[in-house]
């Protein structure tokens, strides 16, 4: 009995899987909507950090810079600045851009790290 029906069962399963892929990839593919900044591509993420750095260069508001960088994910803000500097160096960003990023990274690194005990 099973030997009789097994080929049809397998054929049906293959056809079902094929139809699911056609539906998922062609008829109704994934649309990226309502995403968050932490999913941004590296170049967009770097530009985001650069905008934060540019803004920080004018207002010197480190709280605001940290608040904005927090949207990029759970890492420490200075790590995002470091990543942005790395990418900027790879892509030969301008000296001005690198200076903005560097100033931001320095300011963020100067902040006490979590669990760090401040000297009296």
């Amino acid at each position, binding site marked *: 009995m099973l030997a009789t*029906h*097994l080929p*049809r*069962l*397998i*054929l*049906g*399963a*293959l*056809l*079902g*899987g*094929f*139809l*699911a*892929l056609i539906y*998922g990839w062609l008829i109704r593919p*994934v649309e*990226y*909507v*309502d*995403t*968050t*900044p932490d*999913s*941004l*591509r*590296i*170049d*967009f993420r*770097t*530009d*985001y950090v*650069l*905008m*934060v750095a*540019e*803004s920080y*260069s*004018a*207002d010197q508001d480190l709280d*605001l810079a940290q*608040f*904005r960088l927090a*949207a990029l994910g759970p890492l420490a803000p200075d790590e995002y600045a470091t990543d942005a500097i790395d*990418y900027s160096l790879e*892509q*030969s*960003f*301008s*000296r*001005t*851009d690198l200076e903005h990023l560097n100033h931001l990274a320095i300011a963020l690194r100067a902040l006490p790290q979590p669990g760090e005990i401040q000297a009296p």
Partner: protein
Amino acid sequence: MSRSGWFPFLIGIGLGLAGGLYYAWLINPVEYTDTAPDSLRADFRSDYLALIASAYAATDDLVRARTRLALFSGLEPSTELAALAQQRLALGSGFGEGEAAALAQLAADLANQRRSPASTATRGPSTASTLVPTPLPSSTPRPTPTPGAPFSLASQEQVCNPLLAAPLIQVEVSDAAEGGVPGVEIVVVWDAGQDHFFTGLKPELGQGYADFTMTEGVSYTLRLADSGQLVTDLSTHPCEQPDGTPYLGSWLIHFQQTP
């Protein structure tokens, strides 16, 4: 194929669909990576636009700001940024005020299609969609107030305009060359409270224009945030349409930068 022959086939299709969806939704669900700003959720999109404006306020690089705004399809920059500025201003505290001013400034500059002063050959991210073209030099001075060049009251007049839906305090702020100045903060105070607003939020009415709706019977005092000069006793006044219908009149206040 007999009826009994179709049955295992249909069972197989069902199993295949179920297996495919189980794999796609539970074992290996979609992860959003490498997305573009255009796909951001509405609140993050607003934050991103505010960040573009803040960066523009810091760098004065309008070409770069426009390039960044171009990442958002279907965006009407000057309109949407002006509306966003008003939303941020409504927040009333925290980071909202600075961002509101920056958004108003960018909205006004975009409406005026000003080119930013030249900067060095800066460039943004490397992809084609985000490449920032080399800004073009421009000698156009930025019409923003500068320290040591205060604004003073140039004129103050009552206005009877039946086209206005409500009685307004209309403020125009201009530089020494009569050009409208956006992003100027205006403070209005009355006996029960105070509010502040910025020029440039309605770029269609001029870069240096701002208005505030008055309530009948309330007397307002107005000043520019960076100026000590007060304009007092601003209140609604009676006006009449040609057919005799009464309505409430407005004020037009003009500040100009001292040469």
